[in-house]
């Protein structure tokens, strides 16, 4: 009797190591994107509707997921970070199981259980817990069921579900279906077209399900308008030489420093030297999936590291193969090659960054001031201290009708003593000259309801506003708003030379 493969018991201690490696992520503060997701989740958990009480450009699934977490733990960043840690651990356990089922050597899996969490943790607070990282589980399952090639309807339904979830997190992740089509036409001797049709139908149905709450609430028009705005947003940056230069510079920098030279080296070693007949096909399709997902990053034109990590589930498997090949083939000794290779792993790897993340975690617990100052610097989005200061100021006022107008990160709203209630995580969505009229109206409802307003005067991000100017510039650039503020509000104070705080005049 053939027994189903079980996970090697020796892997258990590697799961513990992986957990220890991922642990510092719990200390990371709220990032600008996480803040937006939490904001959306909070509004929905409190009974609000997507595209009627909250507006953002991501597909709905992420907000419902965050609403679910919010309804259990509230608007608590630590709880969200725990969720992410558990999610990544689940991904690691699942991947270890799937790789075992694919009869991949335990030592490769062990390497994966160290290399993957290292690469994830060192991304720091902004590039983890994104839609891309939430798609890791569906992406690895999709690949597994494809390469397993049992070609049953059951498997295609599972593939459809996983593809659908990936799509519902981010539409462009659907590009992996092209990978499946390549497999379908290249590898399958008997092609049953009904199966891929079934699996894409299931995928689309899952995407449809993620929209169901919006459809049922009658908010689909809000979604359509969001997509019109998104189309404008997607045009930026324009295609041209400058974009190519930016992409190359950015990718070279991020692959070199964040992914690291040593990982890229192991990846190269795996590509060149992994020649085991049984594994060559896995290698080939891992590479195809990586290339397709890499292509999707370039197509999106928004080259942030968190966009790039969509390739990690596949890439890190090859990196793990590379490490085992290196250990097996390299003669470590007192020689110049060993010196270079070991130096590379010590200096040009995620190790030093990882040590730094533990320092962050240490500071989070024992030296909070240093922690806040680490996350408060000249970089445009690293302004944790400012967010805390705004929230502290507003909390002292004790009025929950607080409207925060800024773009690029509204983390302040999660440090408030109450649930933030207003609709826009980015003021650009209603202040941009290209904002839909319905957005402006939705904002005006908030404006008329609010008693305290904070307006950011240094958040001029062309990529989101699609025009020059900060929230402050664009808000007061509109005569109607200018007059409304003049008539109904007084300037209370200016915090940190950039946040203008207005208070409603007592009637």
């Amino acid at each position, binding site marked *: 009797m053939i027994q189903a493969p079980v996970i090697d018991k020796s892997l258990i201690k590697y799961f513990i190591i992986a957990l220890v490696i991922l642990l510092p992520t719990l200390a990371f503060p709220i990032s600008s994107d996480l803040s937006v997701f939490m904001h959306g989740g909070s509004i929905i958990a409190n009974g609000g509707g997507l595209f009627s009480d909250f507006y953002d450009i991501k597909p709905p699934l992420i907000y419902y997921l965050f609403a679910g977490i919010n309804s259990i733990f509230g608007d608590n960043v630590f709880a969200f970070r725990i969720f992410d840690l558990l999610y990544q651990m689940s991904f690691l356990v699942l991947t270890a199981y799937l790789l075992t089922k694919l009869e991949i050597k335990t030592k490769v899996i062990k390497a994966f259980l160290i290399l993957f969490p290292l690469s994830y943790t060192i991304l720091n607070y902004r590039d983890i817990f994104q839609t891309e990282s939430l798609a890791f589980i569906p992406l690895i399952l999709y690949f597994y069921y494809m390469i397993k090639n049992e070609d049953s309807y059951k498997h295609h339904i599972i593939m459809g579900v996983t593809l659908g979830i990936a799509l519902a997190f981010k539409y462009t992740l659907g590009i992996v279906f092209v990978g499946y089509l390549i497999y379908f036409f290249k590898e399958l001797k008997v092609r049953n077209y009904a199966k891929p049709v079934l699996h894409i139908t299931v995928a689309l149905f899952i995407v449809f399900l993620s929209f169901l709450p919006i459809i049922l609430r009658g908010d689909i028009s809000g979604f359509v308008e969001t997509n019109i705005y998104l189309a404008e947003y997607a045009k930026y940056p324009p295609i041209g030489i400058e974009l190519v*230069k930016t992409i*190359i510079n950015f990718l*070279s*920098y991020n692959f070199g420093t964040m992914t690291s030279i040593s990982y890229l080296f192991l990846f190269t*070693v795996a590509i060149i030297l992994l020649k085991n007949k049984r594994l060559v096909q896995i290698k080939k399709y891992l590479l195809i999936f990586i290339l397709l997902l890499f292509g999707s990053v370039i197509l999106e034109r928004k080259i942030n590291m968190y966009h790039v990590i969509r390739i990690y589930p596949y890439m890190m498997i090859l990196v793990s193969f590379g490490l085992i090949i290196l250990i097996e083939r390299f*003669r*470590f000794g007192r020689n110049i090659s060993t010196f*270079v290779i070991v130096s590379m792993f010590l200096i040009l790897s995620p190790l030093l960054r990882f040590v730094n993340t533990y320092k962050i975690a240490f500071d989070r617990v024992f030296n909070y001031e240093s922690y806040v100052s680490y996350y408060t610097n000249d970089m445009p989005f690293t302004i944790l201290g400012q967010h805390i200061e705004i929230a502290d100021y507003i909390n002292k006022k004790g009025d929950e009708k607080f409207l925060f107008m800024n773009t690029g990160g509204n983390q302040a709203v999660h440090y408030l003593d109450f649930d933030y209630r207003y609709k826009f995580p980015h003021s650009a969505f209603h202040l941009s000259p290209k904002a839909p009229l319905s957005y402006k109206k939705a904002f005006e409802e908030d404006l008329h309801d609010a008693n305290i307003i904070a307006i950011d005067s240094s958040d001029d991000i062309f990529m989101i506003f699609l025009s020059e100017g900060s929230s402050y510039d664009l808000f007061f650039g509109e005569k109607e708003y200018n007059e409304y503020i003049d008539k109904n509000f007084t300037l209370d104070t200016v915090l940190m030379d950039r946040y203008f705080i207005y208070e409603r005049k007592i009637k």
Partner: protein
Amino acid sequence: MKYFQNKYDYLLLTLGILILSLTVFFPVSSDMATFIQGGMILKNGGALYVDYFDVKPPFVYYFFEFLYSMFGKNITLYRLFDFVYQTVFLLSSIYIFNKLEFNKTAIRLFSVLMPMAYVTLSFPSTFQVESLLFLPLIWYYYLESKSQTGKYDKLIKGVLLGIAINLKYTFGILLLADILYMLIQKKSIRSIIIQSVIQLIIALAVTLLLFSPVLLSGNFHSFLDFFNYMKEYSNYPALGFSWLQETIKFGTSFFTEHYSIVLFLSALYIVFYVGSKNIEIENKKLIQGLIVFALILFVSVVIERKMLNYHEQRIFPFLVMLSSIGLSLIIKEMKGYRKTTIAIILFVVILFSPIPRLLNIMRFPVAVITKGGRAFYSTLTEGEEGQILKKHFAVADYINANTNTDKVLLINTGGNEMICYFDFDYKYSFPQSAFYLNERAPEYLKEKAFENIKDSEVIILQNNDQSHIMFFNDDTSLSSIQKNLLIWDYIVTNFKQDTIIEDNFIIYKRNPSN
């Protein structure tokens, strides 16, 4: 064995030389202007460390005195010289690697990749002492690598080491690389000691010879004074955790963003390959020699504590050859791949190779020919100081049109390119105002600077040349000079502000009564 055996050898070399020829269209860089200024002052009868002060060894300025006597201020001729020099280096390398029987594909790749790596450094980082090192470096390596030792090898190695030291003192570390290389070759300790001592003695003799103009003019004590002062600069930035972080950051950036991920990974691949079990590789010791030289030269950059691209290029002759060998092995491994697979891999490889940067550099000849040199160079930036060349052109044009004296003094730090565009020869002593304006400057330099000011009729003073590395604080030339009450008082009393050019260069003219 002859290297040139078929048309591809000629074609690839031609391609390499064509790539190198792009440097002819580069403008003057800030460092090049400094060298030219030194050469100009020496040519006009000035003495080093009396009439001109800079950090490099004397040989560099005597060499530029020679170039200045031939090229004057014609930048294209200097660039042409660099092109010829790099071509000679490339041909020497091909000859040497072929003579040492390196893999043919690797040599072919080198003949294109080396020019590519050099040219993509762009104009600020080419024609530096580091790039002048390439030629002595490769011959030095050859003399230790060749199987049959010649009668004069030790002597020539000593001379080459001496030249290297006189291009930059820290290049003396080559001797350490050579010792390690000899250890790899399993030479006896006795022979290593004898060879090293002979080399060192000859190198010191060469140094003595190249210092002879300074010695004979009786200015050696001035050299020593200035050399001691320059140690202040070599102590900056301070060693510590931040320095380590910056070193790793800039080192990684150089290897991945500048040199390119693909070439760097190829170099690492051959290091791995050489150290692999059960693999017999031709020329193993020679490759280990390349690794040792690249590594030790990189260590010298770290020791200098200035992780700048032009500093790091000193490892290119060895690093590029390592990349070439690595790449040739990878290509060999990929034989048999399908065309579509190769096409896809090639796309990604090109993206992360120096090719996109090379394409960007190719705009130089096109723009120079279509727009004209000045117009195009005015759009270029060096460092973070904005469109600095444009500003230098504007100041030079103003001075040429509005003054009729050669007593024009430039007080700035970080780039004195404009002196190459004055209608007259620049005559004053400092390429960097920080040398006499920073708080650690010795009195005699301040006095010399004051002499320059007293002699001048026109002063150009920059107000945005902050450079912590040079001033040791956040001052500019303007703010620093304003703190020096004696000098500033003299300027205020005897000069009148004429105009400000490009918001950053304040022009003062001496009052007519003075």
